[in-house]
């Protein structure tokens, strides 16, 4: 198996229990692996939480870690995917001085071209929202940096897979 370090998107379906984040993050921490981003949300199944974790490592290491994650009692199923196997998005918010919106025409062009959305505008500042791939967000960040950004925040990656994950059948089998 390749020793090449790649980026993987880990999807973990779990029960919604206190302390599970600690249990899962400890698996990475113990192996000295940095989590690039982590997102917790509802999933397509009622009552089941879905974690999306972005990490860099070799596939061999990834497989072992998936095993360790699945071993946790309250983890229903864990999967890993490469970028090509997922459709993914990240989201970000920029808070920028309102004056710039009117004084710097270039900003208006940037907003238009980037497909960013203005969430709110008031006398002091406006808030810009952009969803997309990491490089699109990074590009927008670079462009806006020139004018000054009051605040910037980016969400963790969220991703769905191109192939199906047979989690619903698994749960149905248990409930029989």
């Amino acid at each position: 198996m390749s020793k090449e370090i790649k980026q993987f998107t880990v999807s973990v379906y779990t029960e919604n229990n206190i302390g599970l984040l600690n249990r899962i993050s400890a698996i990475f921490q113990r192996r000295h692996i940095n989590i690039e981003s982590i997102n917790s949300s509802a999933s397509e199944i009622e009552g089941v939480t879905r974690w999306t974790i972005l990490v860099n490592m070799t596939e061999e290491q990834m497989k072992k870690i998936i095993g360790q994650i699945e071993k946790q009692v309250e983890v229903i199923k864990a999967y890993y995917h490469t970028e090509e196997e997922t459709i993914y998005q990240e989201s970000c918010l920029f808070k920028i001085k309102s004056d710039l919106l009117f004084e710097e025409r270039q900003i208006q062009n940037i907003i238009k071209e980037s497909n960013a959305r203005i969430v709110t505008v008031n006398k002091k500042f406006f808030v810009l929202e952009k969803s997309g791939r990491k490089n699109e967000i990074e590009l927008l960040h670079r462009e806006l940096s020139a004018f000054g950004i009051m605040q910037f925040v980016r969400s963790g990656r969220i991703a769905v897979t191109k192939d199906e994950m047979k989690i619903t059948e698994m749960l149905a089998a248990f409930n029989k």
Partner: protein
Amino acid sequence: MKETLNIKQKQYLEQPKERISGSEAIVRCLLAEGVDVLYGYPGGAIMPVYDELYKYQDKINHVLTRHEQGATHSAQGYARISGKVGVAMATSGPGATNLITGIADAQIDSTPIVCITGQVTSHLLGSDAFQETDIVGISTPVTKWNHQITKASEIPEVMAKAFYIAKSGRPGPVLVDITKDAQFEEFDFQYKKCEGIRSYNPVPKVDDFKLKEAADLINNAKKPMIVWGQGVILGKAEEELKAVIEKAGIPSAWTILGASAIPTSHPLNIGMVGMHGNYAPNVLTNECDVLIAIGMRFDDRVTGNLDKYAKQAKIIHFEIDPAEVDKNVKTDIAILGDSKESLSKLLPLLKANSHQEWLQNFKDLYAVEFEKVIKNDLHPTKESLTMGEVLHQINIQSKGKAAIVSDVGQHQMIACRYAEFNTSKSNITSGGLGTMGFALPAAIGAKMAAPEREVVAVIGDGGYQMTIQELGTIFQTKVPVKIVVLNNEFLGMVRQWQQLFFDKRYASTEMTNPDFVAIAKGYYVDAKRVTKREELASAVEEMMQSKDAYFLEVCIEKEDNVFPMVPSGASVSDIRLE
């Protein structure tokens, strides 16, 4: 199917309920799970439960250990000899943190224990209250599962889950933390044992196709070798393993925790693998053509350098925990599942065989090891006493029946190498974590779980002093454990490494020891010290004959080393005999 479940649920809901306190509920849960003894130490945040234990003392025996670490190790000893779940209890804060070493030990050695800790009242959580620690956070990486209860109504379900998780599949430790207000709170109690958790699949199904592939590989092997581990004991698959070994005629070695699953004297039992294991199975690991690993996890102390481990062999791995497959050693065929099920399904697929010529290789190498090492260990001609000859005397008295509880270090390796067993679950030791101080409290738990069995703790002078206070537990409970301290006035294993790899710089390994016999006598435990060979046999006999607890100190050669030895980082076949 759904209808029957509804009927079941209905019956459950119609069961008579009783209004009791959370603390009484905890005791009632323990009784419902068949717990007859638990080990612990009281304190503020767990006092309501102790109050109930007082009321239920005719039904459940609480053993007051002298330190919470002792409580976990006793629970482990209890679990390891009986196969049942051991239970330990402690208060919040330091009581809870003192459990951690035992919990970590149980995690790495797959021992089913349930630990119950008291916690500060729920409205104080997170306020740095007196004796508050985040024990759920602290214990997370070393537990199979843990949970904090803040409402009494959660108690039955969580306790049922705790016992189910601890003992099912690959067993392990579970911690349940209960706030003091939940202990006081009254609620309608009813108990139902846990029968399954949807996110948890403890026993994977055996794949019949893979089993057939494995059987073909074994049937066509010229030089097959089995290495079994504790999975055989945990799966109660000793008879199945024996049948497989005998039918296919496969030389079979064991890991330290697999010891005693097959009698020591069995002709196909070729000894222990690993760092201080036997010469033949280590060397021939790198000559076999099919290596069949059963219920073992290729620990680094077993494999040595992985790049030079059984590279010539096809590897078959029988394993209950999917996370262990391909973790350390890449397998050719992995058979997931319970060892009892997979081995009994394997048996009819195997052709009767005997590998006499191959087995002879093991015998030849044993002769080399006997000449270079074993002879001098068991029948020394030098003046000073060896650890091996003490084990030899214990064997003479035990006739393979005693359970040997060893601590960690040189004496442990000697005990595991030389103790003779003819009963399973007889070798109780801290394998994965290497916890000094394990043996004395573990022996207490083992003897209580199996009072009909002789339990001999073999301990070094270093580890003994880590939990020596448990002599108080022995004195108070009158549990008749036999304690042998092999005293070389050194932290022997570290000293051995210093001698071999650190140019004999004995940094902080020499011990100035107290009068161990006087200390034992201070606890009213019969005690004797042996310094000469001619006193040894009779002293061991006297100890084994004693109806009560007995302490025997044997002063042994100060600077003996344990061989054979696979130096760390070396290949198993580069094992040193001297």
